[in-house]
């Protein structure tokens, strides 16, 4: 794979004796939407935290556009846009102020007319002077994605972005992801929705117990595992789905 935007190489994370991330490696290329799927506690959040530079791995490296996230965090983070699982902006700030703040943190000067243009794009022009806490869940997610991409980053990390959204808001977010892809941005997406993974991801990695079990396109994953006894056993219909593959590989027991 040539010139990856994100290169994750042999990362390991231990919490005391628990091996939370076990030798995880993968790459994302330009314009690719890459899905990281796994049950609760599989190691998704820890992996993502390492990529975001929030968690230092016990071993292994993460490079964004060739910049090591831990050795050269400013350069690496300048190329990443992040939408965290829980939207977390200062509730006292207005949408205008949040845009100005985060634009400024990335060195992007944003004029008032540009803010209006950006808000128009996500359909909340009239909310510019509202505080973040006054927006609906869907509107907050749209603002959050807008902030994640305000500096036109090469790589966008989306941590379960559609959780709790109604179908309209979810479709809107998928459209935004497709638009980002069309503009050659790469996306790393974590999700529990197999429908979402199938709809938007070019490639998918299934992770469990800290290890990557498999990486491939959704179609090839289904093709590869459709006759696997673990998958056949859990399949509910005549046709094997991505969810069947996921449950077959990660097991049926409910995780906390």
């Amino acid at each position, binding site marked *: 794979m040539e010139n990856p935007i994100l290169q994750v190489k042999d990362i390991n994370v231990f919490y005391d004796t628990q091996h939370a991330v076990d030798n995880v490696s993968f790459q994302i290329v330009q314009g690719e939407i890459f899905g990281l799927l796994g049950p609760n506690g599989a190691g998704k959040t820890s992996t993502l935290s390492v990529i*975001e*530079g*929030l968690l230092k791995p016990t071993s292994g490296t993460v490079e964004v*556009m060739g910049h090591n996230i831990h050795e050269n*965090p*400013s*350069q690496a*983070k*300048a*190329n*990443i846009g*992040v939408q*965290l699982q*829980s939207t*977390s*902006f*200062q*509730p*006292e*700030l207005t949408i205008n*102020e949040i845009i*100005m*703040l*985060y634009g*400024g*943190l*990335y*060195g992007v000067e944003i004029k008032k007319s540009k803010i209006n243009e950006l808000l128009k794009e996500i359909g909340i022009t009239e909310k510019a002077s509202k505080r973040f806490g006054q927006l609906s869940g869907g509107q907050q997610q749209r603002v959050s994605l807008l902030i994640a991409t305000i*500096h*036109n*980053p*090469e790589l966008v990390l989306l941590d379960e972005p559609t959780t709790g959204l109604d179908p309209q808001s979810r479709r809107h977010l998928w459209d935004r992801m497709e638009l980002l892809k069309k503009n050659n941005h790469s996306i790393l997406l974590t999700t529990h929705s197999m429908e979402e993974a199938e709809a938007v991801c070019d490639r998918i990695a299934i992770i469990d117990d800290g290890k990557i079990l498999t990486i491939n396109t959704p179609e090839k994953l289904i093709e590869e595992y459709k006759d696997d006894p673990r998958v056949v056993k859990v399949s509910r219909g005549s046709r094997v789905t991505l969810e069947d593959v996921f449950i077959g590989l990660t097991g049926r027991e409910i995780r906390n």
Partner: protein
Amino acid sequence: MNEIKTEASYKIFKCLFRADLAVQWRNRRASLISLFVPVIILISWKSVVIAMGGAFALSSAITIGLVAVGLMGYANNMARDREKGIFERLRVTPASTTIIMTSRIAVQILQMAAMNILVFIVAYFIDNITLSAGGYILSFIISLFCGAVFLSMGQAIVGLISSSATVNSVSRFVYIGLVLIGAFGELGVLGGLLKNIILWSPYGSVKILLLTSMIPSDWGSESWIALIVTILYIIIFTMIGIKWFKWKTN
């Protein structure tokens, strides 16, 4: 590729500081309490002014104001923002943790400066307390330095306690303890032993420094010892606050 230039650190600080100031302004009810408590004390202590002198009352009021800003303001803001994940969101940007922290502390120092000036003005107009020009300048500088004791205490509290509700309770408890025991203890009301303990407590050492800086000719060996004790408190509380501080609660 987006290249972040090294001189952008100042711009990053400016953005954060502006946002932190806006947040502080919108939470001004809490800020006003820390501004007005020392003023109310000063107004209601007319008898203390007459009995112990203007500098004594002024230094007590400023010390109480510094405790309020450092403990009630800083500690609670940090705990709340940590719990809401605001620090997590900021840390995934190119802003370093040092700049994020510096901006937070700068806002509190600004508030301490405002409290200080307000106390000087009220003391002048209500109690006719005046200091020499040197006294005003030195005590103003010393008060900002002493603010670091209570900011570091606040940092130690958010370092040791993760829940924002518990931080709120503990900081109020420590605030009331420091202020009540400090104010009454230094007058000897609570006994000689407690008076000596309070003398070298964070409250007492800050009080000595402020009092003697208001009358620079009174600066002596006790002031130097108070300065050393104050520096030690800052170092110890900062070390505790940094060592155990976590940017997220879970």
